[in-house]
């Protein structure tokens, strides 16, 4: 899932300083699961902003909505009837949702309430961590299912580097060395011979280096 975190209230509140009619829109997908921008968080943000504004003697009218998701046009369409009544829209979706809403509603000012962090997993309730960089050329079959791009701080394809000590990365004693994980996993799988193979220089053009990316499936297009 895409993991995000709410921006500080002060920052959100300063974005809407001069507005008195605000629509807050949550998203029912990833950001609901990582408790950053679902219905519950929309309620909390609305309540907090309302209190901040009453305190500043600048009352505000807030409408709260939470869509199934904000990265698909049919769900965004549900706002069509009333979005124009609001001076600004605060989207609690990831960066994709915020942008797609802005694209669909050209006359509305859409503001982000979250900082989108990474593609990751729920390690345990309340703890999320990164697993994928969306590099566009998956190498997990070579590395025992542990990603060298996302899990190694240097994204080394042939690691570990000299900064690996006692299974930890030199950037922080809390960060596990990705290559340590790869070697342990390959060893557990009895596939350590894969570690002997040199992974060739990476083609980063499938990553962001190739510019904004797009997937087109002609068979699915209408």
């Amino acid at each position, binding site marked *: 899932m895409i993991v995000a975190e709410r921006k500080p209230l002060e920052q959100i509140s300063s974005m809407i300083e001069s507005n008195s009619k605000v629509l807050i829109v949550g998203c029912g997908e990833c950001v609901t699961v990582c408790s950053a921008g679902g219905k519950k968080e929309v309620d909390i943000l609305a309540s*907090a902003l309302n209190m901040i504004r009453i305190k500043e003697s600048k009352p505000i009218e807030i409408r709260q909505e939470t869509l199934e998701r904000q990265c698909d046009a049919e769900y965004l369409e549900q706002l069509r009837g009333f979005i124009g009544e609001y001076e600004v829209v605060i989207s609690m979706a990831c960066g994709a949702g915020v942008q797609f809403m802005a694209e669909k509603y050209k006359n509305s000012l859409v503001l982000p309430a979250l900082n989108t962090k990474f593609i990751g997993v729920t390690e345990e309730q309340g703890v999320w961590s990164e697993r994928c960089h969306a590099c566009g050329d998956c190498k997990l079959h070579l590395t025992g299912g542990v990603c060298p791009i996302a899990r190694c701080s240097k994204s080394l394809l042939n690691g570990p580097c000299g900064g690996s000590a006692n299974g930890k990365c030199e950037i922080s004693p809390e960060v596990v060395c990705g290559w340590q994980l790869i070697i342990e996993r390959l060893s557990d799988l009895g596939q350590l011979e894969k570690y002997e193979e040199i992974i060739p220089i990476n083609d980063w053009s499938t990553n962001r280096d190739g510019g904004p990316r797009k997937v087109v499936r002609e068979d699915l297009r209408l």
Partner: protein
Amino acid sequence: MRLNYPPNVKIIKVPCTGKVDVIHLLQAFERGADGVYIAGCLEGDCHFLRGNLRARKRVEYTKRLLDEIGIGGERLQMYNMSAAQGPRFAEVAREMTERIMTLGPNPIRAKNRKP
């Protein structure tokens, strides 16, 4: 026991403090409460095992939110007491009332009062 405690304390019953969520606490302040405290069972004595521990964490989170909002996290407090500790209940009610009296009214309510 017929113990006295300040009449300004309004009690909202919940099945377990684990039911109390951040939004419930925020809405209490939004609707004008000057202070809120949660009286949970003693730690380790939760019938649902961790309800009171969860409530404590949510209270801590909400305290930080209240600080961000500018109402002040000290207006919210978690207490633990058993159903057999009537005197402690009354003592906490007095303690919290005194704290809120010192802090003064909820700034939200103060603003709303103005014509």
